[in-house]
Structure formats: C-alpha cells, structure tokens
C-alpha cells in the first residue's frame, strides 16, 4: 500500500493529482467519479462577466495546443450561486481560481471567494491572454510581490500563485511570490504563442496570439520547476504537458509536490484516474511507501560519478 497523500502548506490532499484551471468542469463527473482526485480547480473566474475571445479559439501545433479562450466567465455572483455549490458537493478540496486586472480587483475577488468550504484560492497572475500583448503580473518580480501582498492581506485562505513561463527569470518571480505570502506556486501557465494559416496568411487564432500548452512545453517547464524548487521553500505544483504518470514522476523528481493535468483531459477525459493508478503502481513497484518520496529526488542526487558512458 502506497500512501498517496501530499501536503500543500496547511492543506493535505489525498493524492497529488488535480486538473489545471480551465481544463475540467463538473462535466468530468460523467466520465468518472471525481471524488478520487486530490483536489479540483475550476476555470478562472473574474468579478464581471465576459464573453471571451473570437473563434477560432484553439489551434493544433506539434504536440501542443494553442488556445485563446480568453477567460469567458459568467462573473463572480453567478459562480458563487450556481457553480461553486456544484463543485463543493464533490467533497474534495476545491481551489477556486481567480483572475483580475489590478491588484485591488484581485484582493477584492479573493476576499469574496473566501467562503466556508473553499479549500484555497489559486491566483491566475499569469494568463497571457489577459493583458495587452500578453503582459501579466507574474512577468516581473516587483509586480508579483505587490499583487500577492495585496491578496495576502485580503484573505486567510491558502493562496496558490500561478506563475507565467513568459519571463526571463522564473526563480526571481517565485521568490517574490513566496515573499508576498503565497502558500504554494503553480508552475506554470501557458507560453504565449502563435500560428499562421499558410493558405490564408491569417493567424489561426481569432485573437492572433494564445497560450501554448501540451507535451511540447514540458521540457521547459520541468526546468522551471527545478529552478523554482531550489529558490523557494513553499511547495510547487507542476503544470505543463502532463500526459501520464511518468510525467508526474519527472516533475516530482524535479521538486514538485503535486501536479495539474490540463490539455491531456481534452485528449482523454479519463486520463486523471489512469495517471493516479499508474503513479500508485510506479511507487509500489519501487517500494516507495509514500508518494512524497518522489519529491525533489533529482535535486538531492549527487553529481553522477561518471557522465561519459
């Protein structure tokens, strides 16, 4: 028997597997019993409703997906009244993902979702579609520190800061988020990308640019998790191209404590239970009694004795 539980700050999850924001809704309960997941992160919400971006909203790339969904949201009041209750009925930790255009707005929405039953708040300070040209809070350490501090003062719920990979120094930003009071980091959101239809010369996305996700980005995000894990003491939740249990192992070895599965849900909506059972088996086969034994394994390795094989 493998103990699959992981701790993310003060929160204990029954296992490290959960969906990435925007990649699962309650509909997934028609595919399998969601109560087996470690946590559930619904799609990011904002205070005011918005329609999202023009279609086409997705485009395929080599082993990747570009999306410019653009955070369509029914707004906070609708979410609180109609959607949150559905999620809370799942009975597993619900981490509400929120997005906003300013630090005050962020503080305000976080205050409003700090309701009984809500396990934590994921702050999407990284969405590349939101601000002009893809600029986001988490592109800089200063703006990250400011927004996380403001949010920290507004809520006592655990805060997960979701970082953007569209930055030259993810480790600095991670340190800033930790200093601002984040309880955990989600590394990372999508890479700003673009694709052009060579028949029409038009961008393949209605919004011109969009976020790149999927297996293509995994090697870059693994490096980011590895760097962040060396820079901060708070737990890291990996997000980027996770398709199977081996990918989760790779991220945990690089320093992550848990894993979010995004795009893979579109390719196979039953993927998360499969990852969970394969991960359990992986630990079992190697005699690991706790899945936490995977965390940071590569960080703790001594340098290879001989690298010239």
């Amino acid at each position, binding site marked *: 028997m493998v103990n699959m539980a992981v701790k993310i700050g003060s929160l204990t999850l029954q296992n490290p597997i959960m969906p990435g924001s925007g990649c699962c*809704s309650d509909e997934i309960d028609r595919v399998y019993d969601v109560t087996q997941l470690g946590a559930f992160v619904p799609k990011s919400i904002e205070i005011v409703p918005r329609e999202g971006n023009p*279609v086409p*909203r997705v485009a*395929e790339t080599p082993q990747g*997906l570009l999306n410019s*969904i653009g955070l369509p949201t029914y707004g906070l009041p609708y979410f609180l009244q109609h959607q949150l209750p559905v999620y809370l009925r799942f009975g597993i930790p619900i981490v509400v993902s929120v997005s906003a255009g300013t630090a005050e707005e962020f503080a305000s929405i976080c205050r409003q979702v700090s309701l009984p039953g809500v396990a934590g708040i994921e702050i999407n300070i990284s969405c590349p579609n939101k601000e002009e040209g893809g600029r986001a809070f988490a592109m800089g350490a200063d703006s990250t520190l400011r927004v996380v501090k403001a949010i920290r003062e507004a809520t006592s719920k655990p805060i997960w800061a979701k970082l953007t990979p569209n930055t030259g120094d993810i480790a600095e930003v991670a340190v800033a988020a930790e200093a601002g009071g984040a309880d955990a980091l989600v590394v990372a959101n999508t890479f700003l990308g673009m694709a052009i239809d060579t028949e029409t010369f038009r961008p393949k996305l209605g919004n011109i640019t969009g976020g790149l996700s999927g297996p293509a980005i995994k090697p870059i995000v693994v490096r980011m998790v590895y760097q962040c894990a060396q820079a901060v003491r708070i737990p890291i939740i990996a997000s980027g191209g996770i398709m199977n249990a081996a990918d989760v192992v790779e991220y945990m070895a690089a320093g992550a404590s848990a894993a979010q599965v995004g795009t893979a849900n*579109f390719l196979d*909506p039953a993927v998360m239970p499969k990852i969970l059972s394969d991960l359990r088996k992986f630990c079992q086969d190697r005699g690991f009694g706790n899945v936490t034994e995977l965390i940071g394994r590569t960080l703790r390795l001594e340098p290879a004795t001989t690298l010239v094989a």
Partner: protein
Amino acid sequence: MPVHDHLAVRERGGVRPQPIFSDHGRVLRNDHVAGEYWHMELEVPNGMADAAPGQFYQMMCESRATSGPMPFLRRPMSIYHFDRQRRRLEFLYKITGLGTTALAQYRCGDLLGLVGPLGVGFRLQELWKHILIVARGVGLATLAPLAEAAHQHGIRSTVILSARSPDLLLSKDRFLKNGAAVSVIVDTDRSSDVENVERLIRGFHAAYPFDAFFTCGSNRLLKLLKTLSRELNVSGQVAIEQQMACGLGMCFCCVRPIERGGRIEQLRVCHDGPVFALEEVNSW
C-alpha cells in the same frame, strides 16, 4: 415531451446524467464509399453505443508520421448508426484534412480511441406525424439515425438529399429502409438550387403538413428552412459544427452565437448542441 429517455437523463437534478465513455472501439470495417467519403464500423465496449441521433463521438486519429504534422486533438464525428445490443457504431466521414486522412488509414482489427456519446441530440415529440429531413453532404450521416428513430416511433420522414453529383448521394438506401420518402437533388442538373428545394418543400407541406424540420450540412438550406419555419410556423432543429478540443463542455473553444431568450449567447456546440432550434442559429 422528448421520446428518448436517454435524452431526458441529460437534464440536471434528480435524474442521473448520461455517462460518457473514454475507451477504444475495434474497427470492423473502414471502406471507401464515394468521392472523399468513407464508412467505418466499430465494435465498442458495453454501454458506449447507448446513444441518441444527433449525438457524436470524439475520435483519436493516430497517424504514423514522426516527420510530418500530426493531428493532436480528437476529431468530432456524428453517429451514422448505433446498435446498443450488438455494441456497434457506424460513422460516415469525409476526408478533409490531417485527422480524417489518418482515420482512413485504420484497418480492420485496429483499435480506435473514442469518447462519447457526447452532446445534445435531436428531439422528437410523440404527437408528431410527419417530419422533413433536409441533408447535404456529410450532413446525411448526422440525420440518418434520426430517420431511423422516427420510423421506430411511427413518425413519417420525408427526406431531401442534396449532393454535388449523383455518385455522392450516400446512404439513400438507409433512408428508404426506414420508410422515408426520399427526394434526391444534385448540383449537376441544378435540381439542388434553393428555389427548387423551396418548391419541393412547399409542395410536400401542402400535401401532408410537416410537424418539424431537421437539417444539417448546408448553410443555404439552413437559411431556407429558417425562413420557411417562420412562415409556415413549423419548428425545426439543426445540427451545427464547430472546431472542438474537449468535446464535453470543459474548454469553451467550440462556442457559436446562439439566440436564446432574446439575447445572443456564446454557447458551446459540444455541450449545448450540436443540435439547436432553427430559430436560435444564425446562418453565416
């Protein structure tokens, strides 16, 4: 009142929602039919074929090409025929790009990844006596199981099949088998002109009034039916398409502007459709 209670289960609260399967089907045949059209039959796991006309599946179209571009997402395909007891699913598809090209390479015995059944299908009402089905191109695939369901419930179907040329008139026999009265119109002799279709429909309606219109596969025909629906006061349904990622309402990529309750909402074709009321959908 919907006839199919597996449609009713989609409604929330009380009733258990229809389960969605993610599994593999075994290809029983995958044959070229005509033009770019192919026909695939699969044997699927228990329960997976428990679908409704107008619903669809998401197919994983794997291709052997490390070097070239590959389909990354699944591809949505309407059910052409389903048989719960024998666990059979059939699809009629047109080769248009990467995914469908890969699909045509599957051979008998291969396993194909399927997710479904998905979406909201067509709704038939018990009091109906006579429906009109107007299909063009691959829209035939989507409407074939509707004619079958209508037949099973004693509803008469009049079917207008439209195609570029006579050799592309797929599955006429399938409609005939289901007791439908089938009219065939093609571009080659200009019988498919909108004016002619309108004449046909008005004629049929005058002789034996329609309770509902159904269509799929042509924007021109959608436009025509919307007009006639309003004028003749006959309700209607249309199955529409949009590019999909998840296929089950999670990603919000497949939206279309739908007129509902006096305002236009961006609804998800995979989740709120693919079948919508005629008056809700704008032709484009």
